[in-house]
């Protein structure tokens, strides 16, 4: 039943043996060891598993791994210019802004939240607070009350201007 697929993840070709029913989120985590993509629900509400697929934010729990073949996948690990290295090698402006503005507490929703924000700012570089709150509606955070997340996304937007 399993088939071999090649996924283009964070700029590298990765091979995975997957069942057709395997969700991208699980393949990223369990087979490719990209555990920065988190899974917080089973109904596509929480957004913790958000990754970029050809530059657009998608919940990787609603994408079959086989559907992602041939497309460009970016996970939180691949967001920083040099692949992150735990922040030692420079950060993406949104990562930096989340750090500066205390936009995270437990950090579990953060990778998905940041990926959604990347998509938002790419299409809307100067969002209002209301637009930000609307854009991240599909990403749940239980720690911050969202206030500093909104501030972080605004700060990243300002840094990009």
């Amino acid at each position: 039943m399993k088939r071999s697929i090649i996924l283009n993840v964070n700029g590298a070709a990765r091979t995975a043996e997957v069942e057709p029913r395997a969700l991208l989120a699980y393949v990223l985590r369990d087979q490719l060891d990209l555990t920065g993509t988190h899974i917080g629900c089973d109904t596509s509400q929480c957004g913790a598993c958000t990754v970029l697929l050809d530059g657009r934010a998608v919940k990787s729990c609603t994408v079959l791994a086989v559907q992602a073949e041939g497309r460009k996948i970016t996970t939180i690990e691949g967001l920083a210019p040099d692949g992150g290295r735990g922040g030692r090698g420079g950060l993406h402006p949104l990562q930096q802004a989340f750090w500066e503005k205390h936009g995270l507490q437990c950090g579990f929703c953060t990778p998905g939240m940041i990926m959604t924000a990347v998509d938002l700012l790419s299409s809307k570089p100067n969002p209002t607070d209301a637009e930000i709150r609307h854009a991240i509606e599909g990403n749940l955070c239980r720690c911050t009350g969202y206030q500093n997340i909104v501030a972080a996304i605004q700060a990243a937007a300002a840094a990009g201007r």
Partner: protein
Amino acid sequence: MATLFGSGIKRREDPRLITGTATYTDDVKLPGLLYASVLRSTYAHARLKKVDVAKAKKAPGVVAVYTGADLKDKVNTVPCAWNVPNCDLKVPAHSLLAADKVRYVGDGIALVVAESRAAARDALDVIDVDYEPLDAVVDPEKAAQQGAPQLHADVANNIAFTWKVAGGDADKAFAEAPVKVEQRILQNRLLPTAMEPRAACASYNPGTGQLTVWVTSQNPHIHRFLLSVMLKLPEHRTRVIAPEVGGGFGSKIPAYPDEALVGFASIDLGRPVKWTEDRSENYKVTIHGRDHVEYVELAGTKDGKITGLRTRVYAGLGGYASTAAPGIPTILHGLMYSGPYMIPNISGTVYGVYTTTTPVDAYRGAGRPEATFLLERMINLYAQKIGMDPVEVRRKNLIPKDKFPYTVATGITYDSGNYQGALDKALKMLDYKKFRAEQAKARKEGRYLGVGVTTYCEICGLGPSQVAGAVGFGGGLYDSAIVRVYPTGVVRAYIGGKPSGQGEETTFAQIVADEFGIPVENVEVVAGDTEATPQGWGTYGSRTTAVCGSAVKIAAQRVKEKAKKIAAHLLEANETDLEWKDGKFVVKGSPDKGKSFGELALMANVAWNMPAGVEPGLEATAFYDPSNFVYPFGTHICTVEVDVETGEVKILRYIAVDDCGPQINPMIVEGQVHGGVAQGLGEALQEVAVYDEDGQLLTGTLMDYAVPKASQMPTIETAHTVTPSPVNPLGVKGVGETGTIASVPTLVNAVCDALAPLGVTHIDKPLTPARVWAAIRQAKGGRP
């Protein structure tokens, strides 16, 4: 060097969290790892006639299947660890897997261990269970009545305990009171919803006989002890590691069957085993919060002096007594009935009641939000009845700032406070008078504005261990730290607490760096591994900074005392002639003659030239046991506009003035307030776990349970006052739960205030548009 205490420096936790390099429990991967899945009861209450796992054992990828019968005598039951005294507490056995009866939807029946997550899940489908359904009962008040379905053979009327609190003479106060108000109050059942679901990964080494379990835990040392009990394993061969923890809010305090089950399977199979719940499983089996039915009466004079409070509470416990469950609606609830007020006569009775639902335990605030809500709600009803401004009623009854320490009628003693100060500040931020004028004007235009003002105080910083023992808590409530200085002068602090997002790796590093006058980058805080950290009692009850942070401070001071001896020796001076200045011990009057912290660290660790009788090394351990709880306080204000056509509530402003004593990192304090308020607003506006009459959880996924979204939360205006606690060396109180405690009545009172002209006096939370609309309609004389 500038002081770090009070500085909002960035968190050192964040680089790993924002780059996806942090390790949460489900990220742990070991060679030969197996995956576990639990078959869970689909009935709320049933006898198990047959559990046939033959097919599952042969299913593809399955390594083992265990039932309750298989585990019998090999493991112990799940302990309840808060045996509240003097309340006739009955704690029936809670098996790791049910063998004869299930008592809630989600109760475990069988464990499947397989080569992959999918194989384990698939095999659940071929287990054949024959249930004999029994009647369910989900409402704690109904469950306590004669004739209700009985969950446990030895618990009459499902009443687990009857706990009483009394001070003064409430009956007399009520008999004599010119004014009385009463209200039935429902504390909606809540789903804690830490974004990271629970998980456990166990690895047994047959050679050493040691079991290592990675657990989503707020208190790894408590889990070590409880796991060792459940698995009949010596405690020193049980190692618990709580790695990155993605939120807890109380739900990662208890011992659950699941963590022990993977431990058992790993021991039995000699391979590592991991279990991770998904969200719907989390909603079925991870503890719920609140769930009270309360009958509350308040007595007072016609001019606003409160003279008595009386309660009768049915607190739902779910199917079994969870780890801390008996203490939540009693010690952490009833003892706080006086709030920040002088209420001379108090009496309360709390019935803990088993129901055919998921066990209920500590959820952010844990007992105090329920106490604060009922009190604040009653005060507004009282103010309305006597025609007095609710703020004035509060002001009239607040404990004055010169009365501390103050002992309330329930017998506990508040450490310090300036309640009027916080109230004045918050009222000024709003411009209360101006708002009342706007409200009056709006009403004339047919618009309904309202304001809620909550003055609160809460009990946290749990707490003196002697008190813990006296109230039946099955452990200590001190906490601990080892501060270890390396030869190069860098420092690690190993702490007994275990944060799940609160940022103590940063704030505790600030404490240490301040003490030693070294850059904060030179200090690292280590938490979560029972092999590395000293015995601690966990992160809950807003205790970590007040208790564990104090241990860090004291350990650092001890290190410094030793360093001073070494400095005196090297400088050939008397210790009394030395002073600590700019990160150095210097001879008083000769500031150029000194030894830096780095020089002393090196000498202590190489020990080439030590003073007589002083051991090599530079580290110290502290176990800090506080002399009292701490009592943070503040005033929260919310203004709302209610659309009376749709029942929709719009928050206009939310103001939070909190006093948690001196703030180590104001940025982190503010973050705690934001998150706490948001959780409280969720409780007040939209969150409720709903069961049908058969005990099926209708809000069983994140599609149905309304965790607040970004678009639903207001921008919170924060401010603070600073009243140090005399209890601990840092002077700090807690702030992790204040937001949740204060915000719920603030919002509800604001909505009730808005709708007062329509005759609405009370609405059961959560205040969904449907409920608000129904209350308006009912007040107008229509059908609800």
